[in-house]
């Protein structure tokens, strides 16, 4: 059944109609053109579709869009404020945390949620937090380094500015 819903996505209220049986992944990508959220398995087995719901990473392929009503959804597109990027985004770019980049949005969102909870994570904390995001390119090494660098830069209180694109 298609009904009209209001979703709060990246701080914006978006009112649109969708089937109850649509996953958040489908609505984000296909109805809202937020294609930064990727899909790799649609069964919760890879983490490419990770988004934040109320600040917590979930797999959007196993999350009904209708159940997101009343919650704050953050996608990779919502991490930047104007042309100012989140330090984790900058660190991924600077430390070679992305190769093909397909796992990157989900990986970054998991890392952002970690650093919100734990600004000084150990290497094991980082691994635990990213254990639901598969990467096939990097061997994870540069991803871990990027998260560590981001934690450092956030702790230093340095404001990282970067021009998008």
């Amino acid at each position, binding site marked *: 059944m298609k009904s009209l819903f209001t979703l709060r996505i990246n701080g914006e209220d978006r009112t649109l109609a969708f089937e109850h049986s649509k996953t958040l992944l489908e609505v984000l990508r296909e109805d809202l053109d937020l294609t930064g*959220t990727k899909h790799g398995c649609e069964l919760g087995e890879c983490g490419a579709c990770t988004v934040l719901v109320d600040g917590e990473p979930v797999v959007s392929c196993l999350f009904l869009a209708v159940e997101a009503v009343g919650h704050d959804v953050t996608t990779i597109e919502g991490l930047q404020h104007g042309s100012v990027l989140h330090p984790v985004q900058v660190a991924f770019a600077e430390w070679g945390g992305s190769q093909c*980049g397909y796992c990157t949005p989900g990986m970054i969102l998991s890392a952002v949620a970690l650093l919100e909870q734990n600004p000084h994570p150990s290497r094991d904390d980082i691994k635990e937090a990213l254990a639901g995001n598969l990467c096939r390119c990097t061997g994870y090494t540069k991803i871990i380094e990027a998260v560590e660098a981001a934690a450092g830069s956030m702790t230093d209180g340095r404001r990282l500015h970067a021009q998008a694109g």
Partner: protein
Amino acid sequence: MPKPASATAPPDAEPVSSPRRDRADGPAQADELHIIGRRNLKYEHLAKATGGTKYTADLKLPRLCFGRLLRSPYPHARVLHVDTRKAEAMPGVFAVISGADLPERYGIMPSSQDETAFAIDKVRYVGEAVAAVAAVDELTAEQACNAIEVLYEPLPAIMSIDEALDPEKPRIHEDQGGEGNIHKEVHLEFESPEVGFAEADHVREDEFFFEGNTHAPMENHAVIAQYELHGKLTVWSSTQTPHYVHRELSKALSMPTAQIRIIAPPSGGAFGGKSEMFSHEVAAAALARKAGRPVLIELSREEVFYCHRGRHPVRMRIKTGVRKDGSITAMHFQSWLDGGAYGSYGVATTYYTGALNTMPYKVPRYAFDGVRVFTNKPPCGPKRGHGTVQPRFAIECQLDKIAEDLGLDPVGMRMRNAVDPMSGTVNGLRITSCAVRDTLRAASQRTDFQARFRKLPFGTGIGLASSVYMSGAGLPIYWNPMPHSGAMVKIDRGGGVAIYCGTTDIGQDSDSMLAYIVSEVLGVDPIDVRVCSGDTDLTPVDLGSYSSRVTFMAGNAARQAAEKLRDLLLDVASERLETPRERLRLGGRRIYNRDDTDRAIDFIEAVQAAEARFGTLAAAGSYTPPKLGGKYKGSGVGPSPAYSFTTAVAEVSVDLETFELHVDKVTIAHDCGRAINPMIVEGQIEGSAYMGYGEAVMEEQVFRKGLHKKPSLLEYKIPTILETPALESIIVEGPDAEGPFGAKEAGEGPLSPVIPAIANAVYDAVGVRFDATPITSDRIMRALDRAKREGRIAEPAALAG
């Protein structure tokens, strides 16, 4: 098993051409490099971190509809009848096509034209495409697929190498290959190995098995096709070889290539799994043509396992002769490849299981017999390290055994046998730059290997292996004398630089590589550069992102194009600055006198003066490998303009109660000639090592009851961040005279040695050999139980009872 009939190579089979030395002497000397060798930001470095990169399935077109393929539920069956009428009549269905609509045969290798877009007479594996539907949405397409009636007559399935070698069994292809289900047989012999075995002090024969595995890129294959009524077709596809898709699609659709445009958007990983045309690409194009609207097909993860073209399962037998000091006198290598249902790249794979075995150790006498068979499984093809990973596992494990037999240090034995720079191999391969000894030294010293090998407590171990890989194949897949890579560079009068090149960025950062090289030559910042890649309408041909060819070949093509423009800029700058060209350098968006750096003109000024003098500033460059290889049938596989060399050391521990294998660390030293960007090279080394780790301990593409046993990312295990070992990469530089700024490959070679290094480390840990992959807990348990029963290992407390 068929007995090989030996064919001896002609005596003059070793024309090793001398390396060209004329490239590294341009104006940009190593000590003056501004861009190359630095940890620059990647091209469009923030796009991937912001969700801005548009992969194929992220693109949207007006009136886009959804395609879906109906796939075979039988591993082997005759297709008696396909009736699509019910599907066509369903509301929301725009087009239905099946085998009869697309009868043209194609195949990536000219000698293996054995595929059609949809099965026509027979299906040959579960998952083979039979028909396709375009509909208003995917659910409607699914229902329409279910409404297609297909009448099958099941046939016995051939599911193993042994069954395939049995001439009594039914044939999968009546008109391909030889007796039984043999697809390809290769027999080569160089310098009479029997003489070498007679000279040897020690001869070892071992058998190995390398299990098949698959690429599992994070992005499932996707394609969008749009057909315009004026007769032009545009296809966006997640492919690493747009040029080959261009050629093959033209054949499958019976449509001139001139009317087809293939665009390869950034790919979400490929690793060899997207390097030829697939049914879904033909289906999207044909459906778009029939439906009159653009069609998107996004494969499910399960379908990606059916596309496969991954690592062949290979059974191998090696006989190696050595002298007491460890020097190799001869090798006879035999391989049997389980090819799956179609040819794919399999002819090349078969040769590759033999071609690079004469490196990185000197093998003065060598014979190779290879057999590839058809089975009723998804076709195998090239995966990272194409066809060389399996024999490297076997050879490096056997060398470890030989070293032990002779009481030799495995590093020293490899050092003794290592090939030399500026040399050749018995099978006619030319070796130019070669730092294999440096990689051995670097990896073993970093890990204190010799002090720890065979000295660690029971249950922990350290192992080592080396390897070689190509910087692109010396010959193209289809024979032609044209360049393997072309690039165009255009300079805008505002100073912006555009590069057009047919390369495909699959995450290896080939766009960055092009930007760095052109920026270095022209003295601009990479941010001044735009890269347009992977578009058959706009970019010159590059053969594709496979066989680690892109940096070497497209890098050289782009360098050549940029140098042509640089020369024009130097002409005008030389006049303006009244300085001889030889003294001029480019860098920092200036052209300056190297002896008086204040004597300079801005890049833009030079550009405008040059455009005024010479007209539009655009130039093309191309790269064609030198003539390489021996003069025998099959000599086309193996030659490369340059080889990379790698040594890996693995440190492992085995839980003696649960038999869980932990790979604690892998250290990889890789000779990449010169690192154009060390950060990106490290990423390639680490990624390769990760993938090798997965293949060594958990990945397997296996079948049961004619079906893929694990077609999901839950069941097909790719390592997560938690068990992936610590990876340390060491870049070994020894610039190659022909590589762009000295660069060689880094994206595939570092995978190979990781697997035998792990196997050798497990032996060091528990005293039991693993001659088959993957090394699972179950296998470790069985092997330790057996060894204990047979009294071959001492009984540590943890194993007692």
